[in-house]
């Protein structure tokens, strides 16, 4: 009789114990409970919706880019992904020749390695699914930066010719910047004693100037998609901002001349 009287309190105690030790942890224990899993599921669905939205947006933007046709080449011509030394040499040579200048030297340096390459990426966010950290830290887009290099050209001519040449460089279709200019009267002082020109006399001619010009160029490696830049704001936009094309066209009217190697191959490479 006494044991039977204790039955109800015992069951109530059991209910309380089970609720505390089993049921509530199964509902929520901070990581593997039903509530926690459900929250995790919601995060994963948001991520899935986000990537679907980005894919959709990227397809539309890519179609817009395709519809630009050759206009988009203006941007790639302004900042190419390759150094294209041969085109630089060819174009500077033609610009100098068209301006009536005599070229003493022309060289192209190597792109600066000081600028961080796209491979040097510091991962700030994660796209993997992590149950303990369902909301990953916001990713910081890491995109390739310009790598700068210089072309050095030594020319000789009169003031107007040098000015014309530099103005041609100024509107060159590829990005170019006058980094350094040394303009002096005469020839020998800048060119280091090159005196094979008919105008190079001991006493410099009145209107003959020699210019040592350092022109800055750059290149930008092609962007690659990774976990860091999939969250780039461009994929959230409905359309691609293309006003840069008209800006480049308005400021850089001098088209880059295409470089053609022509005939190549020689039986005796030592024969002049």
């Amino acid at each position, binding site marked *: 009789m006494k044991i039977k009287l204790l039955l109800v309190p015992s069951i109530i105690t059991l209910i309380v114990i089970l609720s505390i030790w089993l049921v509530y942890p199964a509902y929520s224990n901070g990581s593997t409970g039903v509530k926690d*899993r459900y929250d995790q599921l919601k995060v994963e669905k948001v991520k899935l919706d986000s990537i679907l939205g980005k894919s959709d947006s990227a397809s539309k933007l*890519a179609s817009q880019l395709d519809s630009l046709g050759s206009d988009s080449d203006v941007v790639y011509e302004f900042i190419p992904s390759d150094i294209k030394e041969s085109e630089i040499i060819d174009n500077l040579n033609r610009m100098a020749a068209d301006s009536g200048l005599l070229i003493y030297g022309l060289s192209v340096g190597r792109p600066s390695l000081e600028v961080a390459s796209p491979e040097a990426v510091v991962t700030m966010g994660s796209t993997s699914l992590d149950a303990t950290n369902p909301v990953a830290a916001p990713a910081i887009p890491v995109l390739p930066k310009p790598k700068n290099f210089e072309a050095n050209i030594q020319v000789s001519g009169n003031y107007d010719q040098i000015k014309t040449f530099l103005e041609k460089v*100024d509107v060159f279709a590829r*990005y170019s910047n006058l980094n*350094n200019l040394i303009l*002096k009267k005469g020839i020998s002082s800048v060119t280091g004693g090159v005196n094979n020109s008919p105008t190079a006399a001991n006493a410099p001619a009145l209107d003959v100037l020699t210019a040592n010009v350092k022109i800055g160029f750059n290149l930008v490696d092609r*962007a*690659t998609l990774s976990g860091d830049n999939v969250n780039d704001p461009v994929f959230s936009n409905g359309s691609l901002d293309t006003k840069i094309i008209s*800006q480049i066209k308005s400021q850089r009217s001098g088209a880059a001349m295409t470089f053609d190697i022509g005939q190549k191959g020689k039986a005796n490479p030592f024969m002049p």
Partner: protein
Amino acid sequence: MSTINLAVEQETGNGYPKFFKNGVIGVTAVLILVFCLYGGLLYANKKIMAEIQSVDSQYDDEYNKFLAGNAKDVLDFKNRSTISEGLLSKSYSVKNIFSAAESSVLPTVYLESLSYDSNNKMVNLSCVAPGFFDVAKQIESFKENSAFSSFALGKSAIDSKTGLINFDVSLKMK
């Protein structure tokens, strides 16, 4: 002698009070409910896990498709556009340097050399003037030119051969 009746009244047929029986049934039902709830939670957990894995796998597929698609071309174009905008806004026309020099140099003065450094936008000029009066006028002319933001006079000396004054000037372009 009076008699005392010590017999108690029987409440139920089997000897237990009614509320006791109802209580046992109630708490037993609650206990069963607790077990059912626990089982339901375990089942729901399993279902949600399966759904998470499905969404996860779908996300991985879409993510890989996104990486392999033409999104990188869009990103590359946008990156070049952004860099180009910055370069165009910063670009400094060489015309400014020549026009500033041309508009400032006096007819009696001429330049021996001109150098320009884009890092600090400095223009260094080596000038030749017939006399110190012209040097003074030339200095004033440079100072009055709004294309320059600063002016500094360097060394000046008379050339013993020609009798002309050689003087250096440093100017900062705006």
